[in-house]
């Protein structure tokens, strides 16, 4: 069924699937299943239809895709009599090659979530009261159409980053209705995209050829967990470590936090938050002054900067490390080629985030790791940029302000929200929640009641990942042109509709004539265009129907020959060095971090992810603040004690977790919890760091600088027990009897 048995030929049988696949049990009342009810236990059903692709009594695997909150993956889903049972990676899809993340595995729980909104809802009481009445789709459609007509010319569409066919339809919708389309995504990505654009001149995120890298220097990027493409990079990491005979890649991690990813590094260099860029400049100074790299290249890149001002001894104290450590890093980086420097997550979450990232990524030019084996590789444009656009950059915190003001002043008459929860993700200081209540009609396409959806006048639940069609252009891709095909593997479990169908009907209500009626039409038409354009992995068929079925079976379209054009030349960036600014005068840096399982909280409603231990602390179902043991002693607190965290914005309480790897001057808080409302599994659980950080911005991009807050900590004389996988005593390796045996190669 999997690696061996479940290859191309089997897929072919399964593809026709989809729409027809999930018949069955129409007469069944879900609520009384199981529980030993003899009425049901002793019954066996004759389904009405038996489409060819639907087998009773056995499982089938369908290929589909998840565009995700990062990169995305090709998936295969095990379907048993019309119910999705298991999600795994699609072995054919080039980005994840059959592998998957915990989040992707959990998508079945999104499908069968007990708190999914069952059908269209209309606001009954006051806004925000959460009081809604169920209405029929006919009523909902009428109301939706009238809202579109009334809001014409001043609409606002808020979505997660869209790409491919969905993005194309969204463009048409915005054109027809008139207004603005804004994208909501984690703010660190905005900084990353801008850095990549400046340093490499590439509008798309790059991919990293880890499999051929000898030395990886990572400034804070959580590339193995929830950064841009965790599965793809993890596969690369596997090859980097053990994929080559005789060579094992060496990995150093430079960041203020020993994160879940950093724990995999051979060496962790703990630096002061926000000093990543300075350390990178200092490394460049060492490499050029000692003649380890070509000096002229450095002259072009750092043209506006006098590198000698950043000699290790001048930077060391600011970065909280020794000059020797910087020199050592520079020498190793230049000496163990091909070497690669990457940066992200915490490095971008500062007021100087863009400088940090540009300074680090520029290092790759010095060692010749741009566009070469073992270095930064670039992704080509979408094969059909018009009908399959690349995903757009998110809207930065600074750019949200005019949007919110327009909502407040009544300039926006209609707000439509899909797959995004900006009320939760943006600091309360911006006042988005109040602005949504200021008069504009609000339509939410969400499946769950969350902070943003509860502000809606009309809720139109849309199909979840496993129920919908779509064509996605992954960002980052695998280094060649790739399009993932998403197909429904089961029929909608509740009374929901595809998002794209609603965009099309909305655009039609606004007077536009679109060539398609449904999301499926869009996908089929676009695949036909792909076929016309030529190339790709599907060969040996001219028949459009067979071509489409083959794309369905393989889970997408890709062409390994269509790679990016020539690598860019070294740009003149960064132009000046900036130091991180911090808000407040508390004695600790507050460092919120996305956890492995919950990330930025988008899928905090899935119980498997809530119950998945955060790898370093092994805490679950909660949020906490991590402190160094010495700090704990000073404050007289131990694990489980409640402390008051005071920032310039507010004071909140959190339980302490003593982390032996936490720096003495840093308080680490996990992101993703603290939902006011978001299903029974996530709501009223822990706190949301976005609500108590100071809303400082990254200087150039205007992205929210999550880590630019200082905090003071005081004991609150209360205690809780943090739910945790690990016992009460932290697990240490025993000297004579190690659990994890280690072979030292030095």
């Amino acid at each position, binding site marked *: 069924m999997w690696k061996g048995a479940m290859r191309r030929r089997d897929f072919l049988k399964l593809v026709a699937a989809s729409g027809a696949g999930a018949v069955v049990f129409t007469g069944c009342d879900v609520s009384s*299943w199981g529980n030993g009810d003899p009425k049901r236990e002793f019954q066996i059903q004759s389904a009405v239809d038996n489409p060819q692709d639907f087998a009773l009594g056995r499982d089938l695997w369908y290929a589909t895709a998840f565009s995700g909150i990062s990169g995305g993956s090709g998936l295969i889903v095990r379907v048993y009599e019309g119910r999705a049972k298991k999600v795994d990676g699609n072995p054919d899809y080039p980005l994840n090659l059959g592998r998957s993340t915990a989040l992707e595995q959990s998508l079945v729980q999104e499908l069968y979530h007990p708190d999914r909104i069952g059908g269209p809802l209309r606001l009954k009481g006051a806004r925000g009261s959460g009081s809604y009445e169920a209405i029929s789709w006919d009523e909902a459609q009428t109301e939706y159409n009238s809202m579109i007509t009334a809001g014409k010319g001043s609409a606002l569409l808020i979505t997660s980053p869209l790409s491919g066919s969905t993005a194309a339809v969204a463009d048409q919708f915005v054109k027809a209705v008139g207004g603005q389309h804004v994208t909501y995504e984690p703010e660190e990505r905005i900084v990353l995209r801008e850095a990549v654009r400046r340093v490499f001149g590439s509008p798309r995120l790059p991919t990293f050829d880890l499999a051929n890298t000898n030395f990886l220097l990572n400034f804070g990027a959580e590339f193995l967990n929830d950064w841009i493409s965790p599965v793809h990079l993890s596969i690369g990491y596997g090859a980097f470590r053990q994929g080559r005979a005789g060579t094992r890649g060496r990995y150093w991690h430079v960041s203020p936090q020993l994160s879940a990813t950093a724990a995999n590094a*051979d060496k962790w260099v703990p630096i002061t938050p926000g000093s990543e860029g300075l350390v990178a400049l200092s490394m460049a100074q060492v490499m050029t002054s000692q003649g380890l790299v070509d000096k002229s290249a450095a002259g072009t890149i750092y043209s506006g900067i006098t590198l000698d001002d950043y000699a290790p001894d001048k930077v060391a104290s600011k970065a909280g490390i020794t000059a020797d450590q910087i020199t050592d890093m520079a020498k190793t980086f230049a000496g163990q080629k091909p070497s690669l420097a990457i940066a992200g997550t915490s490095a971008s979450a500062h007021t100087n985030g863009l400088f940090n990232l540009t300074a680090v990524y520029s290092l790759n030019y010095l060692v010749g790791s741009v566009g070469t084996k073992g270095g930064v590789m670039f992704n080509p444009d979408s094969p059909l940029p018009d009908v399959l656009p690349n995903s757009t950059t998110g809207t930065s915190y600074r750019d949200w302000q005019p949007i919110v003001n327009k909502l407040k002043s009544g300039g926006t008459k209609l707000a439509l929200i899909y797959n995004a929860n900006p009320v939760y993700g943006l600091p309360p200081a911006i006042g988005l929640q109040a602005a949504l209540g200021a008069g504009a009609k609000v339509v939410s396409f969400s499946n769950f009641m969350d902070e943003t959806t509860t502000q809606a006048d009309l809720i139109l639940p849309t199909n979840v990942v496993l129920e919908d069609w779509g064509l996605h252009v992954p960002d980052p891709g695998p280094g060649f042109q790739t399009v993932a095909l998403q197909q429904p593997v089961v029929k909608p479990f509740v009374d929901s509709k595809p998002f794209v169908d609603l965009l099309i009907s909305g655009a039609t209500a606004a007077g536009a004539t679109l060539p398609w009626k449904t999301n499926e039409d869009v996908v089929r038409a676009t695949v036909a265009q792909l076929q016309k354009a030529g190339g790709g992995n599907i060969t040996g068929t001219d028949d459009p129907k067979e071509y489409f079925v083959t794309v369905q079976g393989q889970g997408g379209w890709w062409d390994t020959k269509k790679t990016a054009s020539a690598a860019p030349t070294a740009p003149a960036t960064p132009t000046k060095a900036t130091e991180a600014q911090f808000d407040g005068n508390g004695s600790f840096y507050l460092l919120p971090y996305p956890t492995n399982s919950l990330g930025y909280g988008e899928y905090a409603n899935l119980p498997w992810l809530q119950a998945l231990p955060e790898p370093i602390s092994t805490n679950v179902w909660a949020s906490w603040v991590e402190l160094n043991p010495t700090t704990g002693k000073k404050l007289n607190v131990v694990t489980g004690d409640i402390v008051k965290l005071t920032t310039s914005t507010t004071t909140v309480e959190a339980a302490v977790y003593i982390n032996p790897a936490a720096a003495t001057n840093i308080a680490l808080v996990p992101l993703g919890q603290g939902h006011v409302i978001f299903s029974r599994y996530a709501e009223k659980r822990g706190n949301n760091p976005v609500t108590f950080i100071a809303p400082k911005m990254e200087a150039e991009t205007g992205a929210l600088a999550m880590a630019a807050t200082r905090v003071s900590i005081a004991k609150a004389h209360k*205690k809780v027990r943090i739910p945790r996988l690990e016992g009460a005593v932290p697990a240490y390796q*025993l000297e004579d009897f190690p659990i994890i045996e280690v*072979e030292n190669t030095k």
Partner: protein
Amino acid sequence: MAKRWGMTIDLDLCTGCQACVVSCQAENNIPINTEENFQQRRAIEWIRVERYWEGEFPTVKARYIPVPCMMCENAPCEPVCPVYATYHTDQGLNFQVYNRCIGTRYCSVNCHWHVRFFNFWEPKWPDTLKQQLNPLVAVRSRGVMEKCSFCIQRIDHAEQAAELQKRDVKDGDFTTACAQACPTRAIVFGDLNDTTSEVAKTVASTDRGYQLLADLGTNPAVVYLKKIDSDPLPDGIKHRYFDSSQVGSVQGTVAVG
């Protein structure tokens, strides 16, 4: 030759991402581990990822190890079962017969790896989430011990499919849920007695292999490949423990299992 199912886990590849944990829970109908389950130390994870510390800030390392059932050849859990509910199959699996188990929990006490889990209560799912349950795996009821089965439903399924084709199960026909999900391919599953299988080849060719708590002489079928460290911490620092009064009072001893 009779089969002996086994597994290698390369600790140099494990990134602690825990995709294996969720994959296992989805495949094997493991009840949702609630906050209370964790508080009571009754969370069920057939495979879990443990984290071990070395040293303390700023010279500190954290290391991960995934721990499924070791499928010991001389399993300590087996002889203590008064009703023969846990026994050894001829394919080297240390197997739990749910419908025979009477819940004495002796086996869990006797397991040094703590990979046996007891159902203290009837497992509960909201009705809608029951749609996800795997029909090929029995849901364990209250009072029953459960543990990693090396995805025996997949083994059986593969054997049946092979039998219909009049052949033997071959390497690559199937793999366990954890191995299938693992992004870095740290987990390899297969027949240790088949010299051509990937897992047997890995065991034969590596010089990093070791078994967890091998001194106990149980001969586990899970072989770990040592973690490699090119920049180890200085010796004096590695095994320093921080003050255990730091970690909070140990509130009551809670039942384990």
